[in-house]
């Protein structure tokens, strides 16, 4: 089974600050991590490989330093990793990102399952997974919480999954190949051992540029290919109010004082 996992290196959002003078993101010194949802995608790919055999390829698009995210995936057990990095890709929005990743996946050849996290924690859009699927003309099943069954024979094979929707859990079946975006409760990602990490460090990670992607239309790459433009970025307005602490020396009195304050806000 050929499995492709698309991952993203993201700043640890807990550490992101805004420069109050320029209003720009202060990314220096902010640690980069593998997007947490993507670690579930990697783990699920490895579980599928253990069951069906085959190969797990991990892709990311980003600056050279994104190679660190790929090394983590290799340490977890992925077979190969490819970095898509080129100035021509810079400024990609979700449309151009999906387009570029889809070109790379096409170059890799036949695949059975593509896995992505449900969204990245920096942008929170969840659009790249479905976008890749449309670009490749395969079905996307989003918010998958469990893979119930995969049958690769007879061709084309099928997959049955559970997914989380707002009102509950849905069980779906579709033909392979398929793209799945996964949620947190699908699995618990494995930890890499020191020897896994040593092995991963020695693996070669090729970088593909726009020139390496057959059929790439330069007008659809990077900023030029992106329909959206970010025009301003600012800090969100604070909540304004500072907390009013209610003394709790006597619990009944505190409870009654709090109830009156909440009722006065007319939110019930």
């Amino acid at each position: 089974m050929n499995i492709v996992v698309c991952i993203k290196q993201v700043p640890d959002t807990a550490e992101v600050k805004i420069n109050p003078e320029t209003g720009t993101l202060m990314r220096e010194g902010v640690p980069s991590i593998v997007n947490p949802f993507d670690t579930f995608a990697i783990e699920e790919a490895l579980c599928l490989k253990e069951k069906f055999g085959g190969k797990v390829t991990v892709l990311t698009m980003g600056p050279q330093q994104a190679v660190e995210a790929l090394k983590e995936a290799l340490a977890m057990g992925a077979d190969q990793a490819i970095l898509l990095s080129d100035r021509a890709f810079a400024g990609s929005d979700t449309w151009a990102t999906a387009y570029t990743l889809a070109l790379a996946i096409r170059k890799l050849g036949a695949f059975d399952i593509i896995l992505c996290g449900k969204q990245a924690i920096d942008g929170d859009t969840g659009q790249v997974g479905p976008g890749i699927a449309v670009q490749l003309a395969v079905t996307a099943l989003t918010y998958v919480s469990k893979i119930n069954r995969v049958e690769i024979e007879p061709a084309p094979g099928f997959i049955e999954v559970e997914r989380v929707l707002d009102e509950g859990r849905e069980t779906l079946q579709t033909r392979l190949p398929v793209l799945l975006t996964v949620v947190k409760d699908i699995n618990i990602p494995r930890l890499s051992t020191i020897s896994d990490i040593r092995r991963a460090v020695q693996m070669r990670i090729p970088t593909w540029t726009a020139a390496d992607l057959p059929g790439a239309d330069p007008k659809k790459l990077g900023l030029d290919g992106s329909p959206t433009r970010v025009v301003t970025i600012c800090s969100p307005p604070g909540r304004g109010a500072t907390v009013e602490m209610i003394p709790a020396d006597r619990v009944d009195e505190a409870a009654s004082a709090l109830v009156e304050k909440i009722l006065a806000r007319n939110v019930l």
Partner: protein
Amino acid sequence: MAIVSIDKEKCIGCGACVDVCPFGALIMADDVAAVNDKCTACGACLDICPVMAISLPESTGGPARDLTAYQGVWVWVEQFRGKARSISWEMMGQGRRLADRRKAALTACVLGHGVEHIAGEAIAYGADRVFHVDHPGLGVYRTSPYAAALVGLVRRYKPEIFLLGASLRGRDLAGSVATELYTGLTADCTGLEIDPESGFLRQTRPAFGGNILATILCPNHRPQMSTVRHRVFEMPHPDSHRQGQIVAVETKLDEERIATSVLNFVQEFTEVNLTEARVIVSGGRGLGNPKGFEMLRELADVLGGTVAASRAAVDAGWIPYEHQVGQTGRTVRPDLYIACGISGAVQHLAGMNTAQVIVAINKDPAAPIFSVADYGITGDLYQIIPALTEQFRKRLRS
């Protein structure tokens, strides 16, 4: 109107495209496929052709050449088991405001099977026109037939703005539709305004876990597409006397050609679902054990609210993941959020700090949750919460 072109040399006359065309625009003539003027260039036939004999004209994939051809505001009305989701009516209220600013019409897209009543409701909520697409194959939401129907409508009628609720289905659908149309999509907007000079839609959204707000434009592609979260915009008041036009849209779906089937659905939220909840009582590690959630449920019941949890409580196995609020869980905007024994990690705050009133109860007076709270009490949850429940019960009864 842009139409597909068929390479008659390549065509083998298999008829697959005729079956898949949602608009009946493809016919067999002299043993090869031919296209008539019903074609909307929706592209449904492109992938089905085994010999790749069908192609779209170049311009439909690229930037929209003539932006003025795109007019009006559209809203997708999401329904589940024949009932419209409230988020869609919130979108209608917003769509109405934007349409008035652009001096344009508001159109609702209602897809499903046997949901005529929703088309009528859409007019009451502000639509001037409703595209009503009825087909058994649309009875249960599936991405590909829903996306194909909407893509076909957009290519044919060219809206300037297209809004969808940022529910899980809405995000799934919007991602597919925008990619197929090659247009911009801004997820989870918290603000939508018309730029007074350019007339473009200014879409504001949080990013980086709520640490920044970005304003985004889609200058050269149409429609300008946005998804908006629950409860960001006010629910409009329906007016059953409003007049509007309901357009029944024919669609041809061939079940054989839809790869996906829904086998089962287990409804898990008998209570109001978290993203729509007006009152949320949420518990964290400070509860100490899963039984604490029974106490929270009692308070939530008195308030007509819903129980939620921090990641710590979910990871401890005290409550299922569906209840998790925060960056890796759900983002909520209730009128009242009562955080019980939640310390307030940044990732949790990102999921709830836009609640209207926040109450924090925690034994640690230095817990970061107090930095976003309006009211705080430090002390023992197991004394304070039952007392609070009792007081609310008394006061709300009177």
